[in-house]
C-alpha cells in the first residue's frame, strides 16, 4: 500500500490525531492524488462491508434452532447465571485420563463461496429494506404505542407516497425475508409486511429476517416464536422460544429490549444472540454491552460474554455451537448446530456444547465406538488442548473422516448424576 493510501486509510479509521487530520483535510484541496486515494479507500471499505456483510447475513439467516431438551417433569422456577468470565477462566491443562484427539496440522484453503449471488442477495435485501424505509417515511399509516393490538391483517407497504410523512419511520418493523413464517394475524407472510405491536411471528423450517427502520435487524432461526410487544419509544420484543440473532442500531429514545421466559435483556446498540427453551434463557454478546436480568441476578454483559438463566439444577446440554478452534469464538450463523448440519473441517472449527452451570463432566460417544470424557468447560466434543502446548489453539479442531458421524453426549454433575443425553449428527465435508 502506498503512502497516500496508507494516510487515507488512517484518516478514514479516525486514527489520526486532530492536528494531523486537519492538515490532511487542507492538503485534500491542493493534492488531487490524495483525494483520489481517499475515494479509493472509502470505496474499497464500502464494498468490503457489503460483500462480507452480506456473507455474514447469509450465515445468520442459516442459523439453526437447537433441539430443546425433552425430559419428564415441569420446569421449576428460579435461575442460575454462568459467570461472564467462566469460559476463558476454565480452560486448563488436560487431566490424566481425559480424552482428546491429537491436534491436526493446520490446513487452510481459499473459500470458494460464490460471491456474486451473495452480492445480488444483498442488493435484493437492500432494496426491500430501503423500499420499506422510504415507503414508511412516505406515510404508510400505522399506530405506534405499547399496547398490544388485536389480531388483524398485516399492513403491506403502500407504494404511493403521501403528503403526510407521519408517523416517524423509526416506528416500524418490517419483514424483509419472510421464509415460511406465519403470524397470529396472517397465515403467511410476504416480504415488506409491517408487523404491529401484538403480532407474533412463528418461523417454520426456514429462517426469517425483520428490520426496524433504524436499521436494527433480527434474524429468526427456524422453529422460533417472537412477539413484537412495542415499537415506541423503542422496539420491545419477546422471544418465546427458539433462537434469534440481533444487530441493534444505536437507540436514542430508549433501550431496545427483549423479554425471554427466564431473563430479560436491554441494549442501546449492539450485536447479540438469544436463545430460549423450556429450561433456559441464554444470551451471547458479540459487540457492545447488554443488560441481562434473570430472576436471581442482573449483570451487564460485554463482548464475548454469555448470560444463562436456567429453570432447574439438573445437568443439561442446551445445544451445540460451531466455534473457531483458534480463537474460541462462535462462527457467525453457527451458534446453534442442527442435527444433520454439514461441517467444513478445513476451516479449523470445533464443536462446543452449551450446558447448564451444574455440568462438571460430559461423556461423549462418537459413532457408538469411542467413549471419551470431557471435564474442562467449555466442553468441546473433541476436547481442548493443554495450554502448555506452544500452540495457541483453544480447541482441537474437528478432524474426522468425510461422511456422517453421530455424537451421543451425556452431561454429569459433581455428584455423578447424569442429565438427559443429547444426540448430534454431523456430515463432514
Amino acid at each position, binding site marked *: 500500500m502506498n503512502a497516500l493510501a496508507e494516510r487515507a486509510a488512517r484518516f478514514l*479509521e479516525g486514527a489520526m490525531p486532530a492536528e494531523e487530520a486537519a492538515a490532511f*483535510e487542507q492538503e485534500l484541496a491542493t493534492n488531487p492524488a490524495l483525494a483520489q486515494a*481517499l475515494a479509493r479507500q472509502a470505496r474499497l471499505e464500502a464494498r*468490503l462491508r457489503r460483500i462480507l456483510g452480506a456473507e455474514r447475513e447469509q450465515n445468520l439467516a442459516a442459523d439453526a434452532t437447537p433441539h430443546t431438551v425433552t425430559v419428564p417433569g415441569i420446569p421449576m422456577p428460579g435461575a442460575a447465571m454462568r459467570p461472564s468470565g467462566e469460559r476463558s477462566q476454565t480452560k486448563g491443562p488436560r487431566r490424566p485420563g481425559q480424552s482428546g484427539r491429537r491436534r491436526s496440522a493446520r490446513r*487452510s484453503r*481459499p473459500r470458494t463461496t460464490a*460471491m456474486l449471488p451473495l452480492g445480488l442477495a444483498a442488493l435484493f435485501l437492500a432494496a426491500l429494506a430501503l423500499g420499506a424505509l422510504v415507503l414508511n*417515511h412516505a406515510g404508510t399509516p400505522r399506530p405506534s404505542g405499547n399496547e398490544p393490538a388485536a389480531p388483524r391483517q398485516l399492513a403491506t407497504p403502500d407504494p404511493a407516497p403521501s403528503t403526510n410523512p407521519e408517523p416517524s419511520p423509526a416506528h416500524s418493523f418490517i419483514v424483509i425475508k419472510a421464509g415460511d413464517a406465519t403470524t397470529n394475524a396472517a397465515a403467511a407472510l410476504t416480504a415488506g409486511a409491517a408487523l404491529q405491536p401484538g403480532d407474533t411471528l412463528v418461523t417454520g423450517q426456514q429462517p426469517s429476517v425483520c428490520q426496524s427502520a433504524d436499521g436494527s435487524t433480527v434474524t429468526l432461526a427456524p422453529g422460533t416464536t417472537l412477539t413484537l410487544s412495542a415499537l415506541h419509544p423503542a422496539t420491545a420484543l419477546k422471544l418465546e422460544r427458539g433462537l434469534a440473532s440481533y444487530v441493534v442500531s444505536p437507540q436514542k429514545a430508549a433501550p431496545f429490549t427483549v423479554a425471554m421466559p427466564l431473563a430479560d435483556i436491554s441494549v442501546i446498540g449492539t450485536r447479540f444472540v438469544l436463545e430460549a427453551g423450556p429450561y433456559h434463557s441464554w444470551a451471547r454478546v458479540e459487540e457492545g454491552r447488554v443488560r441481562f436480568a434473570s430472576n436471581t441476578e442482573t449483570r451487564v454483559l460485554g463482548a464475548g460474554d454469555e448470560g444463562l438463566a436456567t429453570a432447574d439444577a439438573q445437568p443439561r446440554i442446551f445445544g451445540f455451537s460451531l466455534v473457531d478452534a483458534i480463537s474460541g469464538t462462535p462462527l457467525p450463523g453457527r451458534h446453534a448446530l442442527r442435527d444433520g448440519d454439514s461441517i467444513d473441517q478445513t476451516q479449523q472449527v470445533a464443536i462446543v456444547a452449551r450446558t447448564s452451570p451444574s455440568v462438571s463432566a460430559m461423556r461423549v460417544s462418537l459413532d457408538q465406538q469411542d467413549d471419551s470424557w470431557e471435564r474442562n468447560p467449555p466442553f468441546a466434543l473433541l476436547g481442548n488442548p493443554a495450554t502448555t502446548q506452544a500452540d495457541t489453539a483453544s480447541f482441537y479442531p474437528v478432524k474426522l473422516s468425510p461422511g456422517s458421524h453421530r455424537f451421543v453426549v451425556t452431561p454429569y454433575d459433581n455428584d455423578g448424576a447424569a442429565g438427559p443425553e443429547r444426540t448430534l449428527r454431523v456430515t463432514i465435508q
Partner: protein
Amino acid sequence: MDKDHDEYLRQLLRIRDDLQAYCLSLVRSWADADELFQRTAVVLWERFGDFDPERAFAPWARGIARNLALKHFRERRRLVQMDQSALDAIDCAFEADDDQGADELAALEACLSQLPAPSRRLLAWRYGESRPIGRIAQALNRSVAAVTKQLSRLRGALQECIVQRLRADGAP
C-alpha cells in the same frame, strides 16, 4: 411499487456503495456514515420528483449528502470542519470513477475469492462484522499494530488486484 419508486431504487442501488463511501469520507466513522446515508436516502426520495433524469444521479445524491454532512458538522460542533475546496476535491475524486462501480465490485469479489482463509477471515471480522481492531488482535493473540499492518497490506493487495483485473478486462 410505482414507476417512480422503482426508478428511484434502481438509481440508488446502482450508486449505493459509492454514496456510502462518500459519506464515510466526509464523516470518518461508519456509524455516522450509515446515519448520513440513511438520511440522504430519505431526502433523495422526498425530492425525487425534482430530479432531472437527463442528468447524472450520483452527483445529485452526493450534493444532498454533502449538505446533510455540513449540517452534521454543525450539530457535532466539530472544531475542524472541511472547507469547501476540500469537499470539492473529494467530489471530483468520486466523480472521476463514477461509472466503474459494477466492474470494481466484480473485480473485488474475484480478488477476495483468491485470498487464503486466514486473510479472508480477518477481513470478514473487520468489515463484515465491524469488529474493533483491538478485539481482533485479542482473538488472534497479536498486537493491535500487527493487525492494523496486516489489514493495511490486505487492502493494498486488494487494490492492486482490482487494478490488474480491470486492466485485463480492458476497463479505462
